[in-house]
């Protein structure tokens, strides 16, 4: 079904605002964070107005209600990515914390000096730095699946890395710069054949694609609410039950325990074992509302709409002399267009576009090694979501022509 974008835009009050007098916002930065529909804003507002209490303790009405809402959201999230059960969904702050949870808990219990972890050259810093830190602490080894000129992972190189019997392959489902949608099921299958487990950074995929963690056979899958119409401050880690059960706790404190004595504790069962302290309760409720919203729109419809917009954007951007696009052709990528403009720094591009209310991101997008690979310090990046239109792409293109004029 084709999305009714005009109607969808009414769900996002921020899209009505002006960035300066008479200049309407054109938001092309959803890859950094998406805007939030009224359904999410209201769910969180209702929670604070009506149900706010701490969870998993207290027997009063509000405590019961808030606990139920927090756990219902977990059920929705589990269903959204087709997890076997809600106990395999661990709430975290975001994708970064989800990856760190695996690095601190699973990896510190299972990896020793000399063990190999395979990453890729297109990773976000959140899937690089936790492993750098573990390398410094433990002496693990890191290898990287190379990125080809057209922005794809070199799977032949990956296969030869697998001969070295890695313990873990950790990689992004969809690149936040190139937009590349990686052959995730195949990468996981090959990892398993080599005896490794697989952690997937799903920060960009869960908001934009239908993700089925069981079909992918992912061991761990990390994602954030704020990129998928939900609030900031909450994300999730999916894990296979046997793995999560075998892992030591991550943070210690309240809620993650079954029993505490002065000198010892017994950890709680899943998922609470990994959720120490009062969590982001209202945000969990908002996360659930975001999942409801995306489900109502249909992930396949969202993906189809983004594909259409991205196709159009790449075509229009390519026409502009001096614009160089990065990443694969539109059939292999999500709604991201990273580009450079000859003679103008991406920061200046973004600043001049902002004058026309056009919000794009400029910089290395937390993927500095990838930019180094392509020999550029930074790119400008426009990204698209269910509320973006072709008219907005036209505004972007006109804006880039203005930049060119200014820098003549």
């Amino acid at each position, binding site marked *: 079904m084709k999305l009714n974008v005009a109607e969808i835009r009414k769900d996002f009050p921020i899209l009505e605002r002006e960035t300066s007098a008479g200049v309407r916002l054109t938001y092309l930065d959803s890859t950094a964070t998406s805007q939030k529909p009224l359904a999410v804003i209201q769910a969180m507002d209702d929670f604070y107005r009506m149900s706010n209490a701490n969870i998993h303790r207290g027997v009063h009405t509000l405590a019961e209600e808030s606990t139920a809402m927090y756990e219902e959201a977990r059920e929705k999230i589990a269903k959204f990515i087709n997890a076997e059960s809600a106990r395999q969904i661990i709430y975290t702050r975001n994708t970064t914390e989800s990856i760190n949870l695996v690095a601190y808990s699973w990896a510190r219990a299972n990896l020793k000096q000399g063990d190999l972890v395979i990453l890729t050259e297109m990773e976000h810093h959140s899937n690089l730095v936790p492993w750098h830190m573990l390398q410094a602490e433990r002496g693990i080894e890191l290898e990287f699946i190379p990125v080809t000129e057209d922005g794809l992972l070199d799977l032949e190189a990956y296969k030869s890395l697998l001969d070295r019997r890695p313990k873990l392959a950790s990689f992004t489902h969809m690149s936040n710069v190139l937009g590349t949608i990686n052959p995730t099921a195949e990468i996981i299958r090959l990892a398993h054949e080599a005896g490794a487990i697989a952690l997937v950074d799903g920060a960009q995929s869960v908001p934009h694609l239908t993700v089925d963690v069981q079909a992918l056979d992912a061991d761990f899958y990390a994602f954030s609410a704020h990129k998928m119409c939900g609030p900031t401050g909450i994300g999730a880690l999916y894990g296979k039950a046997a793995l999560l059960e075998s892992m030591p706790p991550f943070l210690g404190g309240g809620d993650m325990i079954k029993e505490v004595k002065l000198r010892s504790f017994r950890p709680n069962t899943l998922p609470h074992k990994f959720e120490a302290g009062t969590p982001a309760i209202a945000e969990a409720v908002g996360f659930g509302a975001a999942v409801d919203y995306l489900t109502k729109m249909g992930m396949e419809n969202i993906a189809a709409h983004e594909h259409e917009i991205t196709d159009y954007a790449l075509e229009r951007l390519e026409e502009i002399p001096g614009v160089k696009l990065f990443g694969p052709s539109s059939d292999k990528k999500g709604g991201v267009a990273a580009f450079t403009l000859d003679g103008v*720094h*991406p*920061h200046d591009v973004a600043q001049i576009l902002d004058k026309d209310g056009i919000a794009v991101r400029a910089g290395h997008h937390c993927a500095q090694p990838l930019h180094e690979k392509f020999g550029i310090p930074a790119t400008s990046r426009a990204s698209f979501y269910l509320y973006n239109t072709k008219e907005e792409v036209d505004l972007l293109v006109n804006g880039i022509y203005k930049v060119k004029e*200014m*820098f003549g």
Partner: protein
Amino acid sequence: MDDLYREVIIEHYKNPAYRGKLDPHDISFADNNPLCGDHIQIDLRVDADGRVSDARFDGHGCAISQASADLLIESIIGKPLEEVKKLNKASVLELLGIDLGPVRLKCALLSLKVLKAGVYGLGEAGDDLVE
């Protein structure tokens, strides 16, 4: 906003007078702006009286960062190092002739941070150098 790209800035960005390296030099230092990956290196020659006898900058970055580096280098040649040490945020904004928000301020101040870290012989160009 149009002020942000005053002609003088675009001009210094496109045709910098002091881009390059000095070899030999008495002081050389380089650092990055982690936000956007802008990179600036500054080389100085200092004469017997402790004055900057020559200076160059090199690197890459946005118009604001490169133009402010060029303007900064222009302003310090012939000055005693003791005076260079006194330069701060206000001095750079005065050179640029514009006001900047917090994000772009980092672009504008990178060259001064690098310059002062070099002059003081520090390992890193910290924000405290330009307060």
